[in-house]
């Protein structure tokens, strides 16, 4: 049986639902010799800021049970360098490119988004709403429905590209933020970004991260990510949702699709096995064939 893996998230059309998540696949080109980039549903770049950013001091990462903490601190080359040097190389692979946009102020989001929207060959923008808001003492933009709406609306005006808002899980109930993002013009939502976490080294009696607090990701977070996903899915039955968090096997990805995801993103698992996204793509394909589903539409939301 032929199966169709294409998906449409509003205006954004992808050859298949398996993307690589922001910050876990570099700018995309780094893995070109190990992963057939042309087969990916999309590449989400690492988050870009207006100016190059140096990031946080080491230690930046700590392994935790079935997960990891990171405090990279948005180290990146800045949007200009990306557009000038990396984007042209990445474009050659013909894979949909989703640029992740970061900012510490509303203006920074807008400026980065505007620059990207003028470039050629970008399929969509993803707003990283887990960035620390300078004006509010480093609180994540995405924990506030109001700030989220402001950022999404402003970027919406500044950039004519499909717009994905990526939600932070660091609040009790994501649905008001999700609703605000959609009302402000987001075409789709990605959820979730990393969870705030702490790790201590009992032997050295220090925090394991230079910044004390970091972002938790990896298999450990999957139940929490799926909980938030399920709640947002119920609250917004018609919004295309992208499931992110703890995916490392085809079953993990299928679980999100069954819960109603249009697409999924693979993060931490790329580090463990660079070919994870392709293995998941093959696994989804086989599952559809074995169980007699012709497309993802038939599967999506069966568990609700």
């Amino acid at each position, binding site marked *: 049986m032929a199966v169709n893996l294409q998906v449409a998230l509003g205006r954004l059309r992808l050859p298949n639902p398996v993307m690589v998540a922001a*910050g*876990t*696949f*570099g700018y995309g080109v*780094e*893995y070109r*010799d*190990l992963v057939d980039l042309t087969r990916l549903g999309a590449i989400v770049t690492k988050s870009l800021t207006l100016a190059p950013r*140096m*990031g946080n*001091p*080491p*230690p*930046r*990462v*700590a*392994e*935790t*049970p*079935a*997960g*990891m903490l*990171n405090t*990279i601190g948005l*180290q990146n080359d800045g949007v200009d360098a990306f557009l000038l040097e990396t984007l042209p190389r990445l474009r050659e692979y013909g894979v949909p490119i989703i640029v992740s946009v970061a900012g510490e102020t509303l203006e920074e989001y807008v400026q980065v988004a505007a620059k990207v929207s003028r470039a050629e060959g970008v399929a969509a923008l993803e707003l990283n709403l887990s960035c620390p808001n300078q004006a509010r003492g480093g609180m994540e933009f995405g924990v506030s429905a109001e700030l989220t709406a402001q950022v999404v609306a402003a970027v919406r005006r500044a950039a004519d590209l499909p717009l994905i808002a990526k939600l932070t899980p660091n609040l009790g109930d994501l649905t008001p933020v999700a609703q605000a993002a959609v009302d402000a013009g987001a075409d789709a939502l990605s959820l979730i970004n990393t969870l705030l976490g702490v790790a201590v080294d009992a032997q050295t009696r220090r925090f394991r991260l230079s910044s004390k607090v970091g972002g938790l990701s*990896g*298999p*450990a977070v999957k139940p929490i990510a799926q909980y938030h996903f399920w709640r947002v899915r119920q609250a917004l039955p018609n919004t295309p949702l992208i499931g992110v968090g703890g995916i*490392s096997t085809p079953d993990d990805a299928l679980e999100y699709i069954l819960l109603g995801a249009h697409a999924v993103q693979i993060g*931490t698992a*790329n*580090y*463990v*096995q*660079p*070919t994870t996204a392709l293995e998941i793509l093959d696994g989804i394909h086989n599952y559809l064939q074995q169980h007699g589903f012709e497309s993802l539409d038939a599967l999506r939301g069966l568990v609700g």
Partner: protein
Amino acid sequence: MSRYELPAVVVEHQRRGANLYELILHAPPIAERATPGQFVMVRAVRTHAPLWRRPYSILRANPDKGVFSILYSVQSAFTELLAMKRIGSTVQILGPLGSYFQPVRAARRHILVAGGVGAPPLCFFAARLAPTLTPDEHLLILAGARSSEMLVGLDEFRALGAQVRIATDDGSQGYQGYVTDLLAQALDDPLETAVYACGPNRMLRTAADICLARGVPCQISLDAPMPCGVGVCLGCAIPVRTPDGGVWYKRACAEGPVFWAEEVVWQ
């Protein structure tokens, strides 16, 4: 840059010391391309905890037989699982990765400073360097460990005709004290000498200070947590001096693990 991600068959798995094991793996593309100082990322079993692959320096490589090996000590969950691998089973390997030791051609004395399980890349380096030395060039190994039975690769070093001096924390063999004391001593005459070091970061810092104070070129292989090993996660940041006098980060897995001592900013 040629890197491979592949399953490698365990050809041998040998005890090499108190708590040291050598894992010999069949992986021709890696055996052919490995350069001393480089490492591989190893995934021993399919489990979520421990989650990350672990980096291991290449201890030796035999391109003719298509095998290479790593040396490890059992410390925690990952290495406990690694120690369970049987001959004939496979481990996933990603490599060879990272920068490598560059023989300093102007030097006539090459000092390799090995601390504990920092020895493997220097064994490999010595094995490749020794045959290229002219008769007036010397190879001196300074090997340190907590205790005698933690010393690695002494026989190999000696078989290469290298001179070997030993330091142990507990004095169970050689000089009692830090291996960097031996280095300072050896650098009483710093002329035409190059230093190559691998071991705990604290040891490397001391070695770097000693060399820089004496104007001796020094390469060090740094340890850092490495989630990806291939330069994408930016987790393994090492602060380095930029040409304009500022500080920026390099990646221990991509620009490193081997750095020139003068580059590194210690924090």
